[in-house]
């Protein structure tokens, strides 16, 4: 690792082809319904669609008007209706209602449903039940992969998290397998495959199945990606629950990045309008600060604005010719930079204001205490007070989950009291949220008696009754050692640093959490890549509940295989956070390899918590 000469990480492959494929297939599908038609689009699909096609492409293929699929009758007057939807029962009923209403009024039209990324049998069943099967034609738009950036590919399936981890539904595994197949056929063959988690294993097996069946014509092609690592989100909830402090993570937590772009409101733009901004490697300012700890961002922005000023200042003392040159060649770039700079400064300012208001400093302190496992009582009362003050319900829930996971469940007394207060502060219907959190394992109660091991209870019997109470308490706290603690110790997730942690020149991935904690998910990736497998990690694997695998299909030995062997696709099943992305980008730079992120969706603590709430039908 560090001893070998540091190599530059290879450039990421060009993922633009994925967009072209998706666009071409959509066009093909639209042409299957010749003539003018109105297009109904599922709200969840609008942003992804925006990233690969635009309205004029749709217009060119005879799309007349665009509507949003929603719970209202559609005013469309076209004779052909096309629906671009996710495969959901609710949406099928909406479409069936339209078709049935037409039938009642004796109107005949053509209907086409395009499912993305695939069709479900349950949807067809609903169409059949509603009596419209046969009246509509169905197609699949295999839009599995949306490149959000040069190194991030998203499946844009936020519901994956709830469907799989809460409901135990395997419906998206086929989609994941197909996505892997597509990626493998375009940029592979991948020679090494690693993974951990039940879903990772199933996805891998189904993908293998698909590969065996298809004629593998990829032989002899030079791969661009050599390694792939699949991981289930439930291997590491802790990282996803921590407050993010790298710039991109903070922007996401504060403004919500949606499909790679963000809406900066008036408080950021210092004008009366909002601006939609694409955040990616093309943004010259953003690309330099996105992975930085927030504290380093100010300095950078100051430096930048100083430089910018200097460049403008050069105008003074220019003669006409130089001036002409300046205007025609540099001014444009400077203006663009100026604009970006003022936006990001505005964003920083807005983040600072919000964070100071919500006691961010204190909250981070509590999080760090939870991660390290001290001052549990103080942290619990901090959370309690947070709930009592009716500050953000999502934040309160997040902190409770973090407490639960790091402590292997709350002690029953705390669980009851926090739950009661939560319901009082934010509404009794959250009873359902608590039930969901318990089922998924994010917020649990230690079963009575579970805390005492056999030996400990035997010991406590030996002491007199009077002292017994005290001793038992002491043992209680001992027995609470959770898997997270054990894993954290085994992998040294809490860095030991003498003196101050250098956030500007960070020594390791822990910088993404101010040097207090190395993200578990990323640490696992690092360890497995370093060892080329799971050897030596048996104890960690056991604590994580197993389901690990590693395959090397004719992988070239060290040195051979070229750049592809230094490109790794990190697949996050159930979502990945910007902090994890930043940490692995850092690791990649250190090790001279390139990480490509493939995630079912970008996630954050807030999105995870929101996915646990019960909504109206």
């Amino acid at each position: 690792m560090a001893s070998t000469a540091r190599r530059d990480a290879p450039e990421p492959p060009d993922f633009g082809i994925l967009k072209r494929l998706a666009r071409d297939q959509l066009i093909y599908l639209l042409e299957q319904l010749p003539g003018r038609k109105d297009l109904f689009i599922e709200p969840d699909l609008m942003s992804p669609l925006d990233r690969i096609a635009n309205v004029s492409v749709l217009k060119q293929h005879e799309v007349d008007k665009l509507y949003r699929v929603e719970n209202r009758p559609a005013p469309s007057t076209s004779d052909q209706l096309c629906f671009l939807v996710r495969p959901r029962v609710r949406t099928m009923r909406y479409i069936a209602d339209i078709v049935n209403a037409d039938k009642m009024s004796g109107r005949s039209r053509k209907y086409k449903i395009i499912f993305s990324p695939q069709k479900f049998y349950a949807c067809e069943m609903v169409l059949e039940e509603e009596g419209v099967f046969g009246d509509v034609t169905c197609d699949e738009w295999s839009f599995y992969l949306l490149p959000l950036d040069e190194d991030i590919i998203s499946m844009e399936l936020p519901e994956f998290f709830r469907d799989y981890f809460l409901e135990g539904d395997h419906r998206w595994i086929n989609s994941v397998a197909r996505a892997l197949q597509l990626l493998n056929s375009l940029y592979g063959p991948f020679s090494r495959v690693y993974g951990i988690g039940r879903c990772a294993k199933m996805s891998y097996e189904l993908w293998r199945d698909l590969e065996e069946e298809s004629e593998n014509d990829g032989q002899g092609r030079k791969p661009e990606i050599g390694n792939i690592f699949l991981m289930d989100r439930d291997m590491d909830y802790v990282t996803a629950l921590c407050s993010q402090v790298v710039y991109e993570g903070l922007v996401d937590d504060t403004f919500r990045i949606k499909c790679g772009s963000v809406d900066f409101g008036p408080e950021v733009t210092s004008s009366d309008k909002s601006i939609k901004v694409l955040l990616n490697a093309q943004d010259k300012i953003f690309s330099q600060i996105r992975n930085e700890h927030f504290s380093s961002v100010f300095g950078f922005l100051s430096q930048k604005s100083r430089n910018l000023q200097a460049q403008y200042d050069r105008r003074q003392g220019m003669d006409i010719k130089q001036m002409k040159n300046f205007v025609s060649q540099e001014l444009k770039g400077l203006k663009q930079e100026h604009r970006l700079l003022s936006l990001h400064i505005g964003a920083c300012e807005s983040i600072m204001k919000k964070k100071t208001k919500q006691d961010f400093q204190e909250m981070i302190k509590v999080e760090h205490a939870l991660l390290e496992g001290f001052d549990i009582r103080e942290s619990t009362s901090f959370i309690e007070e947070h709930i009592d003050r009716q500050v953000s319900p999502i934040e309160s829930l997040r902190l409770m989950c973090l407490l639960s996971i790091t402590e292997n469940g709350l002690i029953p007394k705390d669980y009851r009291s926090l739950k009661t207060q939560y319901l009082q502060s934010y509404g009794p219907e959250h009873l359902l949220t608590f039930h969901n959190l318990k089922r998924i394992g994010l917020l649990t109660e230690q079963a009575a008696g579970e805390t005492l091991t056999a030996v400990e209870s035997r010991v406590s019997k030996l002491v007199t009754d009077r002292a017994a109470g005290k001793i038992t308490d002491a043992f209680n706290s001992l027995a609470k050692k959770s898997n997270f603690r054990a894993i954290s110790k085994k992998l040294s997730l809490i860095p030991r640093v003498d003196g101050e942690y250098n956030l500007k020149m960070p020594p390791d991935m822990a910088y993404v959490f101010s040097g207090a904690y190395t993200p578990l998910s990323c640490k696992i990736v690092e360890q497995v890549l370093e060892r080329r497998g799971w050897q030596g990690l048996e104890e960690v694997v056991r604590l994580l509940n197993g389901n690990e695998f590693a395959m090397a299909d004719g992988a070239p030995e060290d040195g051979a295989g070229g750049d592809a062997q230094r490109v790794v696709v990190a697949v996050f099943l159930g979502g990945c956070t910007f902090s994890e992305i930043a940490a692995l980008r850092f690791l990649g730079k250190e090790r001279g390899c390139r990480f490509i992120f493939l995630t079912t969706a970008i996630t954050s603590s807030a999105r995870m918590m929101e996915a646990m709430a019960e909504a109206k039908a």
Partner: protein
Amino acid sequence: MSRARADEEEYWHSSKFRAFTFDDEDDELSQLKESKRAVNSLRDIVDDDDDDLEKVSWSGEPVGSISWSIKETASSSSSSLEGRDTSLQKGSSSYAALPKQVSSYSLSSLFKGRNRLPSLPSLSDAFSDTGVKNYAPELRRPRAEYKDYSNDWSPRDTVRRMQRGKVCSLERFRSLQDKMVLLDEAVAGHDGNVITAVLIFLKRTLRREVLFRELEVRQVALCHLIHFLKETGEQKLLLDLLRFLDRTEEVALSQYREHLNIQDVEKKREFLKGCIGLPFSAEDISHIQDHYTLLERQIIIETNDRHLAMAGQSEIFRKYPRKASILNMPLVTTLFYSCFYHYTEAEGTFSSPTNLKKTFKIPDKQYVLTALAARAKLRAWEDVDALLTTKNWLGYTKKKAPIGFHRVVEILQRNNAPVQVLQEYVRLVEDVETRLNLATKYKCHDVVIDTYRDLKDRIQLMAYKCKVERGSAEEEKINSLLSNMQIRWKN
């Protein structure tokens, strides 16, 4: 301008990296403000022609916004209802005027201003790009939906074919054993879509008790059926299944969940009343009971207060008109409301804070916090005082706050309490450092001075002198302290 620049130069050169905290609002924000000022000062040079600025496409790629266009349809659809003809015409003319349309629909139109025509790869371009085609030829061909009623497929092959999206008849799986082999194959194939498809078939062809019994030992399939029933809204069957499995708590929760869909409060109240008898866990029963009681109370309070507000007799409702109804709000919000509008009411009335506190066993801490916020909002400082004052058995009064005085200060400060009021509570903050911070932040000079005196910190006290007004009582106080020979300063 040049002077301003010189100032800035000086700032940039003098600023150096310091330890970062989010608390350190002044410093970090001012650093940001400086950057902002620097950038803004350039605006005069930059913003000479706005249009030109917009031309710079910084999105990186020309994308057209579909979401934007849908908003357009939504707003124009009302007009198209009146005049169907016009909208049709509009549609047909849009082809002739395509280029114009393009620019107005592009993403950069969201960013306002002009945009160069996005270079759209036409369909023919895309098709001539054979390289793409070869890599993934399957994508261009939608999977043929050919039907195959052949009876020869083994359960395994059937599952495989279904995984590939092919239609397969399941009718030939008639014996229970065949059905279960099929189900187990589907589960082993890891594709939830196929598992559900098989379950739909089994649900149709098996008596429910038989199906339930078989699923009891097949957890993965069971999860799929439960999720399917939730999604399709087959509540009755779902409850039967859960009952069969003896998952009584889930039966209760699943029924309770239905209240979310009831709009009418009276109906909701009735429904919740019915929920009380459901087999919840011992702990949850009290929550359900509370939910019912709370809504019942809210309905009474709401009816009364709406009446009061309409009659215009009550001063408090006239002065602070209600912004929203209290129905379906959390308990703490209801308590806040009651502390705001009904603070002085006797315990006997349903809307009085003390009644709420008793009925719902609201902890002291929560009560004080909420009452404090409500009374501070009304700037009723005597109430705040009374709330935090306790009497011991000798009749001495003492200030006590179950939530910590720094929180009290924070709440008061947020409601713009005058310095005299604030000062009293800042003084009571136990931690010296926090007290000094708060006192300095909110300009409670007396507290700062007294604290430094108690700390015998002469240097800090002297330094503080420049923070108070010249010739003020505070300055005098500092001076007299500094010249007091009896204090043994530590520095």
